[in-house]
C-alpha cells in the first residue's frame, strides 16, 4: 500500500513536471513566433502603405500622363457584358438591363 502510494505520487510529480516543461517550451515558441509576426506585420504595413501610395488614383493618373500618349476614355456601361458559367455553359449577357422606354 505504501509503495503504491509513493509510486503514484512519484508518477504524478514526474508527469506534472514533464507537462510543465513542455508547456514552457511551447510558450517560448509562441512568444518567439508572436515577436516574428509582430515585426512581419510592421513590415507588411509599411509595404501596403507604399503600395497604397504608389497605386493611389492620383499616382496612377500621373503615370498615365507620363507614360501613355492617349488619354483614358470612359467606359460605356451598356457595352459591359457579364459572363456567367452554369453546367459548363458560358453565358454572356448585358451588365445593365435596359428598362422599358430607356
Amino acid at each position, binding site marked *: 500500500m505504501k509503495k503504491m502510494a509513493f509510486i503514484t505520487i512519484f508518477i504524478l510529480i514526474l508527469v506534472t513536471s514533464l507537462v510543465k516543461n513542455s508547456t514552457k517550451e511551447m510558450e517560448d515558441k509562441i512568444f518567439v513566433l508572436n515577436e516574428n509576426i509582430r515585426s512581419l506585420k510592421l513590415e507588411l504595413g509599411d509595404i*501596403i502603405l507604399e503600395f497604397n501610395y504608389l497605386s493611389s*488614383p492620383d499616382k496612377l493618373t500621373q503615370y498615365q500622363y507620363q507614360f501613355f500618349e492617349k488619354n483614358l476614355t470612359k467606359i*460605356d456601361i451598356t457595352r459591359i457584358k457579364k459572363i456567367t458559367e452554369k453546367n459548363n455553359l458560358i453565358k454572356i449577357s448585358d*451588365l445593365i438591363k435596359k428598362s422599358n422606354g430607356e
Partner: protein
Amino acid sequence: MSDKKNNVILEEYENEFSYKKSKTNLNIEFNRIAFIFFVFLVISIIYSIQLLHLGSLKPEKNIKPVITKKNYRADIVDRNGNYLVKTVSSIDVGINPIEVIDKKKLLINLQLIFPNKNYTNISKKIKKNKFFYLEKKISADNYEKIMLLGDKSIKSEEKLTRIYPQKNLFSHIIGQIDDDNQGISGIEKSFDERLKKINEPLQLTVDTDIQFLIREQLVKFQSTFRSKGSAAILMNVNNGEIISMVSYPDFDLNKRDTISDLNFVNRATKGVYELGSVFKTFTVAAGLDEGLIETDTEFLNLEKRLKCGKNTINEYDKKIPSDLTVEQILIRSGNIGSVRIGQKLGIDKLKSFLEKIGILKKIDFDIDEVGDPISFRWGKCKLATISFGHGITTTPLQLAKGYAIITNGGFEIEPSLIKKHLENNQKQKRIIKEGVSKKINLILRKIVTTKEGTAEFANIEGYEVGGKTGTAEKTIVGGYTNKAKINTFVSVFPTSKPTYVMVVLLDEPKTSPDYIYKYKNKEGYYKGTPFNTAGWTSVEVAGKIIERIGPILATKYMEN
C-alpha cells in the same frame, strides 16, 4: 478490605491504559502516511484539473488588445482596406556633448555614416555642450551603423508620425491632430479615444477610387464655373453608408497647416444653406404621404405671382402653364404650384414631415463639424416659402438623408462614415407610407428625361438617373442677392431600384462661355445666353461624375 480492592482496580486500569497507548501509537503512524498521501493526491488532482482546464481553453477571438504605448494612434482604412492614415514609427538621433569621450573619433565615425553633413557646424554644436539632433527620421541602415559605434553620447528617440498617402483626398473627413496626439477635427477628433486605445484599424465606408473621381470633377468644374467652393456626397440610400464625401477647397494633411480661411469649411456637413427648389420634392412627398394629393391631382388657375406680406413669390419659368398636375409642378419646378401643395398640407403636417426626415434639426453624425439649421418661426408666409425651398436652411448631408428616405421606400437611415459590417442594418423602420417612393422616383426620373425637366445634362445612358435641381440666391443683409447663388442637384440612381443618392453643390458658380443656351431670335440668327442656374452647372457636374463612377458602382458593388 475496601482499600485492597481499590488497589487491584488501579493495577488493572494501568495495564489497560498501557495497552491502549500502544494501540494508539500504531494508528497515528498509519494515519500520518495516509494523510500525506491524501494531501498529495488532492494537490495532484487539483493540478491535473488545472492543466486539463488550461489545455481545453480556446483562444478568445474578440479580445482587442489595449495599447498603452505613449502616442499610439490606430490606422484608418477605407472600405477596401486601403490606408487613408497610417502611423509609422521613426527614430531621431541626437548627440549629448557632455557624454562625448573622444570628439575626434566620434566626428570621423559620423563622417563615414553621414558624408554629406556639415561637420564644422556639428563640431560647434558639440562645443556648446547642449543636446542637439543629428538626424531626424533616420533610415534603418544608418540607425544600425550609428548604434554599432557604441558611443554613449549618441541618443536615439522613437517617434510616431501620421502619414496620409491620399494627401488632400479625405482631408475634411479625416481631419487633423495636434502635436500632443489629440484629434482636433474630423474623424481624428470624434474617434480620438478609440484611435488611441484599440489596436485595430478604423474602417470607413468611403471608397478611395470613387472619392478621387468625384473630387477630380469638382476641381475641373471649379475652374469652369469659377465658384467659391463645391461639395459632393454619394450615399447608399438603403443603409446610409457614405461612399464619398468631398468638400472643395481642401488641404494636404501631410503638411499639417493651420487652416484659418473660412473658405476651407466642410461644405458637405458644416455648411448650412438655403437650397431652393430641391425642397419641392419634400413638399410633394409630404402631400403623397398624407394622402392629400396624388401625382395626377390638378391645380388650376395658378397665378404667376403671389403676394405674401411684404414679399412677392414669382415663377422662375415665365412660360409655365396655369393648370398643372402635381407631377408637372415638380417636373417644371413650379413655385406657385408648390405653395398651393404646401397650403393644402398646412404648417403642422409639412413641419412634421420635414422633422421626420431629419431636415430641421442638427444631425448626429460621425464627425463634429456639423452645421445647425437656422431656426425660424412658422407662419402662413413661412409655410408658402418653405414649400418651394426658401426661408429654410439645412446641410447638404441632411438633404442627402432626406432624399434617401423618400426614395428608398420610406425607411429611416442614418448617414455614416464608419463601416459597421452589419448585413441586417438595412431598411429597418418605415417612416413614410409604402408607395410614396415609387411615385417620387418616377417624377424624379422624368425631371431628367423630359424636355420640360430641368436636369437633362444628367441623363447618362444606362444608369436611370433621376433628380431635382435647386437654385437659391444667397442671403445678404436685408434680403437676397441674385449675384451669388447656391446651385444644387440631388440625383438618385437607378430610379427603378434606388441604390445611390448624390448631392452636388456649387457655391456661387458664374456663367461660363462653354455653357450657353443657343436659340434663334426673331431675325433668324442664333443667339446665346449664358446661364449659371443649377440645370446648367451642378447637373452638368453630376452627369460627368456619374459617367465616371457609374461603371465602378455597377460592377464593384453589384448585387447578384
